[in-house]
């Protein structure tokens, strides 16, 4: 009996052990969780996004969320996940992976559409801000229509693009693509200010302005104005262009730089410049101090050029007296008198060349004061001997040969 009891107890123990053993084995199978129902896949931005997974067993699961701007991880013991607004407000695909521990239970994606019920916003970019008249140059107007959560509206959203120029007012519709609606706005023939705006549904944008500058200048005419035609080295010649215009008749922009090239009788090149005001560029240049003929032509460098004009200058003086003093060591040139016999204005240039044995030693220059210029040849610099002296003033040349200096 006792023995039987013993066997019974051992038997019960074995059965118990087996039970415990089997449950240990069976447990993982019980833990197996399957997703019975996946959540719906389309949502609108800004609305609460709830992802409901119906699981075969109540367990704590994790949901990995991968969205446009970043990822996060949510945890739930019910299979219901609420996406943070930082993610559910932005349009695009959100992929999710449901994890139990490190095991993937489900993978899927939802789409968040822009919310058309929120007040729309317009984002506009216009550039370049200045263009050239004539219909070749253009500015580009780019408009992004967005919902209240800063999401670009879907492709093929109708966007009205409007513009005003002088007495023209036009509007056109474009369909958005790749987030944007855009158009190239080509210039008209006239210069002026182009105003741009846009509209999507009832939302209107602010005003953008683009400056339409005149196109490149055409060739032009020049003329000269002077007080007299004497080569006195004192008066000023004024050079002036005709009104510079582009091919459509727009006066070209102020400040366009015009260069005047002057070629004198010897072929030397003189230059003067001016910039345009109201299409006219004025430049000035001093009269020559000797008889000369100038050929003048103006350029807008690389773009346009003028006709060539010729102006001649008459000499103001035929001859002038020269006085040698102090054993030829002091030379007084003048008085220099001008076309009405008046004394030449102060500052006329006198040049004296000193030559010894066919060898030029020095060129002295002085400007006249009250019609005269005085040169002193000091003994320290010019030792006694025979010199040639050449004198030039106002285009008149005089030579004195074999002058002895004591």
């Amino acid at each position, binding site marked *: 009996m006792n023995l039987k009891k013993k066997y019974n107890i051992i038997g019960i123990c074995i059965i118990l052990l087996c039970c415990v053993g089997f449950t240990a084995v069976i447990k993982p199978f019980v833990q197996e969780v399957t997703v019975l129902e996946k959540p719906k896949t389309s949502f609108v931005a800004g609305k609460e996004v709830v992802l409901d997974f119906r699981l075969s067993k109540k367990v704590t699961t*994790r949901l*990995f969320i*991968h*969205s*446009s*701007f*970043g*990822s*996060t*991880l949510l945890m739930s013991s019910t299979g219901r996940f609420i996406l*943070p*607004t*930082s*993610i559910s407000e*932005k*349009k*695009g*695909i*959100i*992929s999710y*992976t449901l*994890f139990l521990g*490190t095991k993937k239970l489900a993978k899927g*994606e939802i789409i968040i559409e822009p919310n058309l019920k929120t007040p729309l916003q317009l984002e506009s*970019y216009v*550039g*370049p801000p200045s263009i050239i008249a004539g219909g070749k140059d*253009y*500015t*580009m107007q*780019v408009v*992004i229509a967005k919902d209240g959560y*800063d*999401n*670009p509206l879907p492709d093929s959203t109708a966007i009205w693009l409007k513009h005003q120029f002088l007495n023209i007012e036009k509007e056109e519709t474009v369909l958005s693509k*790749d*987030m*944007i609606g*855009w158009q*190239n706005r080509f210039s008209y023939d006239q210069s002026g200010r182009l105003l741009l705006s846009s509209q999507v549904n009832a939302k209107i944008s602010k005003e953008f302005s683009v400056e339409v500058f005149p196109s490149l200048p055409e060739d032009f005419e020049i003329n000269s104005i002077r007080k007299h035609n004497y080569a006195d080295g004192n008066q000023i010649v004024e050079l002036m262009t005709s009104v510079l215009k582009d091919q459509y008749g727009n006066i070209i922009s102020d400040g366009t730089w015009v260069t005047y090239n002057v070629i004198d009788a010897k072929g030397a090149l003189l230059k003067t410049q001016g910039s345009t005001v109201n299409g006219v560029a004025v430049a000035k240049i001093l009269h020559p101090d000797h008889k000369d003929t100038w050929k003048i032509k103006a350029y807008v460098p690389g773009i346009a050029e003028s006709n060539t004009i010729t102006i001649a200058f008459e000499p103001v003086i035929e001859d002038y007296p020269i006085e040698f003093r102090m054993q030829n060591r002091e030379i007084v040139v003048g008085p220099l008198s001008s076309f009405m016999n008046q004394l030449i204005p102060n500052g006329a240039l006198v040049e004296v060349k000193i030559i010894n044995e066919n060898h030029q030693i020095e060129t002295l220059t002085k400007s006249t004061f009250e019609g005269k210029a005085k040169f002193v040849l000091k003994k320290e610099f010019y030792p006694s001997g025979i010199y040639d002296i050449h004198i030039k003033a106002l285009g008149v040349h005089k030579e004195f040969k074999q002058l002895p200096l004591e």
Partner: protein
Amino acid sequence: MTKWNKNFYRSLVITSFIGLMVLLLFGISQILSYLNTGADRSVMLRLALNKENTYLPKVIWKDTVNPGRLIEKQTMIDIEEDYLNAWYIRQVAYQTNKKEGVEDYYTTNASERIAKILKTNRSKAITIHGTTTDHNISLDFYSADGQLAVITDQNVKEYQQIYKDDNLILETEEQSDYQVMLLLEDGYWRIRHLVKEKSSVPQKSKTTNKFAKVVRYKIYIDGKEFRIKGINYYPQKSPWDMFGEQFDPDTVSKDFDIIKKAGLNTVRIFVQYSDFGKTRVDAKKMKKLKQVLDLAKLKELKVVVTLFDFYGDYSVLDWTATHRHAEQIVSAFKEHEAILAWDIKNEPDLDFENRNKENVVAWLKEMINQVRKYDPNHLVTIGWASALAAPILDEEVDFVSFHYYLPLQDFNDTFSELSIMIDKPIVLQEFGLPSSRGFWNPFGATEKKQAKFHQEFQKIINKDQIHFLSWTLYDFEKVPSSVVGSLPWRKHKQKHFGFIDKNGKKKEAFKFINKE
């Protein structure tokens, strides 16, 4: 006595005066330099991000045809650079949950969006370590004034590790298409709108097995079964520095002759990561590597090239740098017939403890993918240090390699256990015994014992026709500290694994280099 005293006080006064002056001057200079902080020009300017060596995902411009305006080469470079910087700075932000620098590469609205998600993650103690490996950019629109661009970036492969309270809990791979609008603001191309448009399943790169293939447990070359009978090789004079200053093709050629004559058919060599120039692979080293491979081809030896030797970062943000390294080496030799396999990394399981097993395994997995992408022709393996680690990633490699330095009598069991677990060829990639009896190791093996060891080992190997590569051809005179540390008894051991001693004399073990 008084005089001595007087002098003593005098010198004390003078030295303390000098000391005081030094302290005073030091103090003044410290104050001045403190007041100058921030006025430094290099600090005032927002200089380019120093990301040169870390974030280099593969970027391909698929097309630039767009209705807006023809894009200039320089603008493409600028957009690419700033766009990648935007990705990089965002990865860093999600890794640290701090938004520093984000506003440099995202407009105000966009960076606010990122800041909000960062705030959510911070409140939940979630950090995300991520990187992208591939970008395929096409230009949708470039505006006339050059201030606005819309691009589509397709098949962006993203790998992310999600940490909660600094514990890695998940890793994910995503592949997505994005449409991005960028604006040029104060010299930066900043992201204005970013919309994920599509997500797809990442595709793995495939091997075409042009030069060698694996069927079940066997390796085939040119249709013939190939049993690896090989040796790990470093030149005697330059162990662990094969492609350095001492590189000499003649030495390599002679050594290859010895190896070939000994009846072996394979050598395993090592390419060091930083030695080869990291992200900018050194052309000189490449030339030397090519010489070695050409010599191997000439001598009819196959080569297992071990990459990333001495590399040990594995951090997610460093991935792309290593990808560029691998790309340059692997794609250059994808047609080279001498190569049998790329060994991704030598003994990566030794880094499990310090570098986190998940990090190392994830890096290896992606690296296999990368290597196959740039060289689909050759086999791929990983040189595990222990048989325990060998089953890791066995699905990904073409054959499994492991090293065995444990007692000889346990090898049979270890190997048969492995063969049950793994359905691929298993290569015993390193084994050996140092004949290291000497001052530093009085109980070490003698040359005789070493010979006996190899004889025994060959018996086991030959019985099951196991692929093997022994360690190593030569005894070395010098072992760098980076290999086994600087302890002399450790170095000593490492110096005596060779079949040929440091005087060039074949040791007894040489008889058993290939046969029992």
